[in-house]
């Protein structure tokens, strides 16, 4: 979408005024008390904590393969003196939510300042509706202006008062070219008899339904009962015909790599990480799903320190380095889609291969083909129950 245009437009500006962009970041990060003129927010103490407690998904941070250190977190500590207590303890939204909902519902802290939840699962919206997230201290996040335009007004948090994207990814189809011809559409995946019993579908409702609805010619960003029923019926038929072997989380990846599956509904990042030359990932012809993992501050978290960290990662220079890593220093990047304008230019300097990888910096055409699932539908109890009954019984 317009994302790519603005990104490129910003590349120039970033190249010229890179320092100018990062400067406020450093200022805020150094604890230079930002003017708390951000109106409405409850009085936030502008004092950095000694430790930032950050829960994230596994393999979701730039990491030095040799020393296992996280370079961007170390640089943050150097800059601000804040040590980041970084825990990779999120494997899926549902079980992480189950872990934290108990204390949060009793008004207790969960001992985290930042957690990361996905927008095409129901829990992110649920956290906000329940009032279990702290409001961001926007005065400490001037770099928020670098947020890509498509992400500025999501319907679960229209003004980005509570959340900021960490990374995005796409859901589409992966296939193994030693076993099958290219599988490029849902028609092929769900209805080609040659693939019978050799495909899996994602058990995440938002991903699967977006892709199938697009294939049906319906709009997944504004789900109607009619569109839902048509897509549901199509998947159900494929289950009854034994076309679909299993519904999976990312456990489809090893099965696909082993050759037990010919094709799978799949997340782009998984295939990029496996790095098997016979596995190909593509956005289905009719379109794929776009999801975004969002940072938020759970109730009781340190708002100011978390906001300062968010400001830090929204510096295009920092984001570019986190994305690309540095092959010369054995640093692996995040390799998902960054939400920060201008990150590409900095990524390119460190690892041109990453900057030109269409799964990490997708073209405007690709981004035009991926849609975000309707967040109202994510919380529709009837849909949820129907879906869960299909995938788990």
């Amino acid at each position: 979408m317009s994302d790519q245009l603005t990104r490129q437009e910003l590349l120039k500006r970033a190249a010229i005024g890179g320092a100018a962009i990062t400067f406020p970041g450093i200022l805020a990060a150094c604890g230079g008390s930002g003017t708390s003129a951000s109106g409405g927010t409850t009085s936030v103490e502008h004092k950095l904590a000694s430790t930032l407690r950050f829960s994230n998904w596994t393999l979701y941070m730039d990491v030095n393969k040799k020393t296992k250190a996280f370079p961007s977190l170390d640089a943050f500590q150097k800059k601000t003196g804040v040590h980041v207590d970084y825990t990779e303890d999120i494997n899926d939204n549902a079980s992480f939510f189950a872990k934290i909902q108990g204390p949060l519902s009793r008004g207790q802290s969960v001992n985290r300042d930042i957690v990361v939840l996905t927008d095409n699962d129901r829990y992110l919206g649920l956290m906000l509706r329940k009032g279990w997230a702290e409001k961001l201290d926007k005065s400490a996040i001037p770099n928020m202006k670098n947020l890509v335009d498509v992400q500025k007004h999501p319907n679960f948090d229209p003004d980005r008062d509570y959340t900021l994207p960490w990374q995005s990814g796409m859901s589409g189809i992966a296939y193994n070219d030693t076993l099958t011809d290219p599988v490029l559409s849902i028609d092929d995946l769900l209805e080609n008899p040659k693939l019978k019993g050799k495909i899996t579908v994602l058990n995440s409702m938002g991903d699967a339904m977006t892709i199938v609805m697009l294939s049906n010619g319906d709009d997944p960003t504004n789900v109607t009962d009619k569109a839902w029923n048509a897509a549901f019926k199509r998947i159900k038929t494929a289950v009854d015909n034994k076309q679909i072997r299993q519904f999976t989380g990312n456990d489809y990846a090893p099965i696909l790599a082993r050759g037990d599956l010919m094709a799978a509904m799949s997340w782009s990042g998984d295939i990029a990480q496996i790095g098997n030359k016979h596995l190909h990932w593509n956005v289905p012809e009719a379109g794929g799903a776009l999801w975004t993992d969002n940072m938020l501050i759970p109730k009781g978290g340190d708002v100011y320190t978390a906001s300062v960290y968010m400001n830090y990662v929204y510096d295009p220079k920092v984001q570019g380095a986190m994305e690309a890593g540095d092959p010369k220093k054995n640093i692996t990047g995040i390799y998902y889609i960054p939400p920060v304008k201008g990150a590409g230019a900095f990524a390119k300097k460190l690892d041109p291969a990453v900057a030109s990888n269409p799964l990490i910096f997708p073209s405007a055409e690709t981004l035009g083909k991926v849609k975000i699932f309707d967040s109202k539908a994510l919380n529709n109890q009837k849909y949820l129950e129907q879906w869960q009954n299909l995938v788990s019984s």
Partner: protein
Amino acid sequence: MSLFHRHRNLTPYLLLAPGVLFLAVFFVVPLGYLAEQSLQSGNFDIGYTFSWQWSNYWDAIHNYKAQFIRSLEYAGIATLLALVISYPVAYWIAFRGGRWKNLLLLFIVAPFFVTYLIRTLAWETILSDNGFVVNTLQALHVLGPSGRLLATSTAVVTGITYNFLPFMALPLYVSLEQIDGRMIEAAEDLYASKWHAFWRVTFPLSLPGVVAGTLLTFIPAAGDFINAELLGSTDNHMIGNVIQSKFLQLTDYPAAAAMSFILMGGILVAVFLYARVVGTEQLTGTAA
């Protein structure tokens, strides 16, 4: 002395106190909490309130009858298989193991040093569509050319059998090991054939082990969901999968709690029927 006498009646109760307290804190209280939750109504957004919502139970039975029955069926078959596999092994170790007994027992327990999840994932590789097992079965025409084991009930039952095998083998070993060899000799002296001696003497004496083993296998197997999740398709999901999805995905805690109670009830009935058949003294091991 008189003080001691006066308090002596209390002594058993005092000795029981830690155990009773343990049961109260770790069994009765959580169970009561779960029972209360199973009768709540509402939803996660507005919150759940206690309202004697018995329909949670009827709905669960009505909607998930197939999964309840499947769970008991898979657990039953897996228990039987585990018994058939473990008995000769335990017998051999107990009577022929000699000085290698401990090492052989270690082999049975060894897989347990690896986490449950990894052990189950290993079966994904063993039963892989292109793996040795499937290829062999295809060559023998047991499986059709496009046949497979993964994502079938066979794979799920295999996984459960494997994962709970030590729970069967160890009690069997203990009861077989305790058998006085002279009893079998006596039977043979009285002109019993080896086969007769086994059925009339050895097997009955090992029954406490059989009963303990089957219960230790059947009960957790009926509630298992990992094997069905990883090795089965949606047609093979057990009630544990439904409970997991109700609890985690739908945050419908009352329904999940009600299902847990129904499962518990189902298992209790199954155990009761079993006890009626084999006799309660076997269940408590007093016959040994």
